[in-house]
């Protein structure tokens, strides 16, 4: 799609301490093999969008390490454009380190482009969403702004970092406000995916940003509608969608994908999820290992027991070790006869022989990167 620019928005992801103390949520590991932003990048790639910008807020090293030159998500490495967008002045003034200031700073997307449409997708929402029919609808209806939303069963428990949307029968959004977290029951929540006509975005930034430099895209769309400047159209997405808005949800949504029926909704044969290749060998299992109900990434070496867990790349689990209800990030070593239960162990950690650590199902333990226990 030559007339579309895709922007991955790292600004709009919530901070999930302690998981995001040293990395943005978008480049955080997921299911042992992916980074969370792979889902949005794959959506662009599968939709044939080949002008891609990454709106980087901070921790760019972590993002660049994963995405490199974005070759892994690009169909043609010559005809495509891939741009890392970084808001240098935003670092002098953190209140203004917003997605809109970033777009304004890198204004090729607004002014130096032939694209008619800009698609913004967040790095922390997991879905296998086909943008093509949504764009087609946006174009056919001559919309200026389309917001993609999803129906959730209980707004007080899901998509807590996103906006509640209310639309009339025509799909015209008449109310749009941050999820307060106390409205029980079903609602339509924004997936923070926006399709905006390029000239409309340029106009909105020109009009609203000077008066309010800390404005972000989410508020801008709300404000533009509020003041009657631009109407927003709701596209309701019906497939699997999860918003990583808290540490608990990170754990819950990871584990729920161990259920093959749920995993099949996200991983569809016609919808590949691309990620960086690490050229790690297949996983090796020892003669005395026992592994059940788990996802295992390549490069793992398992000689112990693993149950209901997610094992990352290059993880070593020594003989006699027990890992249960746990997520182990890449390159962590679990020593002989150690016991890990209800925990997330971050990268490059070492659990020494016979150590027992863990939390509870309701309150899992987090062990920071590089910990030696």
């Amino acid at each position, binding site marked *: 799609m030559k007339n579309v620019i895709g922007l991955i928005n790292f600004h709009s992801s919530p901070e999930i301490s302690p998981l995001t103390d040293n990395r943005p949520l978008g480049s955080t590991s997921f299911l*042992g*093999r992916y980074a969370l932003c792979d889902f949005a990048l794959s959506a662009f790639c599968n939709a044939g969008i080949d002008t891609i910008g990454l709106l980087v807020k901070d921790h760019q090293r972590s993002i660049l390490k994963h995405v490199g030159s974005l070759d892994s998500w690009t169909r043609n490495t010559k005809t495509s454009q891939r741009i890392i967008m970084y808001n240098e002045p935003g670092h002098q003034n953190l209140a203004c380190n917003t997605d809109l200031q970033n777009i304004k700073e890198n204004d090729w997307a607004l002014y130096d482009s032939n694209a008619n449409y800009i698609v913004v997708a967040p790095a922390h929402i997991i879905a296998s969403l086909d943008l093509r029919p949504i764009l087609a609808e946006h174009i056919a209806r001559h919309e200026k702004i389309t917001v993609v939303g999803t129906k959730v069963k209980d707004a007080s428990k899901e998509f807590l970092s996103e906006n509640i949307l209310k639309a009339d029968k025509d799909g015209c959004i008449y109310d749009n406000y941050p999820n307060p977290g106390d409205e029980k029951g079903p609602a339509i929540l924004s997936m923070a995916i926006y399709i905006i006509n390029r000239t409309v975005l340029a106009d909105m930034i020109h009009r609203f940003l000077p008066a309010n430099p800390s404005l972000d895209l989410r508020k801008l769309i709300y404000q533009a509608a509020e003041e009657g400047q631009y109407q927003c159209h709701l596209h309701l997405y019906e497939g699997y969608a999860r918003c990583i808005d808290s540490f608990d949800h990170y754990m819950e949504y990871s584990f729920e994908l161990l259920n093959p029926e749920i995993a099949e909704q996200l991983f569809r044969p016609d919808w590949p999820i691309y990620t960086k290749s690490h*050229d790690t060998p297949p996983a090796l299992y*020892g003669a005395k290992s026992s592994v*059940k109900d*788990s*996802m295992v*990434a390549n490069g793992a070496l398992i000689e112990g027991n693993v149950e209901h867990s997610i094992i990352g790349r290059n993880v070593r689990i020594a003989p006699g070790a027990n890992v249960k209800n746990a997520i182990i990030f890449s390159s962590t070593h679990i020593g002989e006869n150690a016991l890990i239960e209800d925990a997330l162990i971050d990268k490059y950690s070492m659990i020494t022989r016979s150590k027992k650590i863990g939390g509870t199902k309701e309150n899992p333990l987090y062990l920071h990167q590089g910990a030696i226990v």
Partner: protein
Amino acid sequence: MSIKIAAMILAGGKGTRLQSLTRKTAKPAVSYGGKYRIIDFPLSNCANSGISHVGVLTQYESSELNTYIGSGRNWGINGVDALMSVLTPKQTEEGSSWYRGTADAIYENLDWLDEIDPEYVLILSGDHIYSCTYNEMLNLTEEKDADCTISVCEVPWEEASRFGILETDEEGNILAFKEKPKQPKSNLASMGIYIFKYKSLRSALVADAKDETSDHDFGKNIIPSMLEGGKKLIAYTYKGYWKDVGTIASLHQANMDLLLSGDPTINLMSMTGGQRIYSEDNHATPQFIGPKATVKDCLINQGAKVYGSVDHCVISSDVIVEEGASVANSVLMLGARIEKGAKVVDAMIGPHALVEEGEEVKPEKGTIALVSNKKALGR
């Protein structure tokens, strides 16, 4: 900038003894180790040796192999100044013919080598499994100012008559070379890995091409004629894992060598940094081990789903082992499917092959069964 060394990989062989696995696939493209194809090994070795000019000579069922090699991107041989070429037999002013032998294959592509004009040429087989760099062998060639260095390994004396055997003096100079000698005088077997001074190789190949009685083979013709002509040929002793898999049983064994219980001289997990074996990434999901599965002593690639019991197996991407199925001492290739209640022992299950519900695959003791029905396609 002058080019130190270019590699030519002989990948045209049919591999008849691999039966149906090579009916539609060239032997170097046969899958191995759950993730790889055999040719990933020599190609990764070239990449890890810093060799950036590689020609792959293909002939038999070449389209799958040619497609796989592509631009060399899988092995990183696509950087600045790098050149990865698939060299198939071609039509010329003199006519056209298939490659008549290993030496003829190189001879027919002297124009490719002339264009690069390397100081040395490395000749490799596309169907050997081993992990090394060729730098030490090249250093030795330069140090001794040899016209040709042949990589050798020690084989058991009783098997020596199956190989091309070299006799050397104390300094490693090659005195004689005999293909499959009845009474071997040494147990140093040629591994089919050669480094030639390009000038010496070129003149030997041109002379050989004119000889109508020649089989145009490196072992049978080129090496003996260079020895006769008084050229300096030396041996380089290779220590480490090296396999030329010719049969279903030896391919099965080479797979089992990769397991933790297998051969400690080949360990994929220890091949890190500049020793990795690179391959195609197939965008598969992480592997999933089901709640009732048992997995013992296995090598399993991403994208596999195991709900049944697997013991002493090598399992590729997109394989499904259903609940209640049991598989032991077997290799399950890309997309194979073992339905519930099926029992598989001592087998190679080919790409996209199906073992149906309740079916039993069990060969005679001491042999390996091969299932290659492609019936799992579209299931």
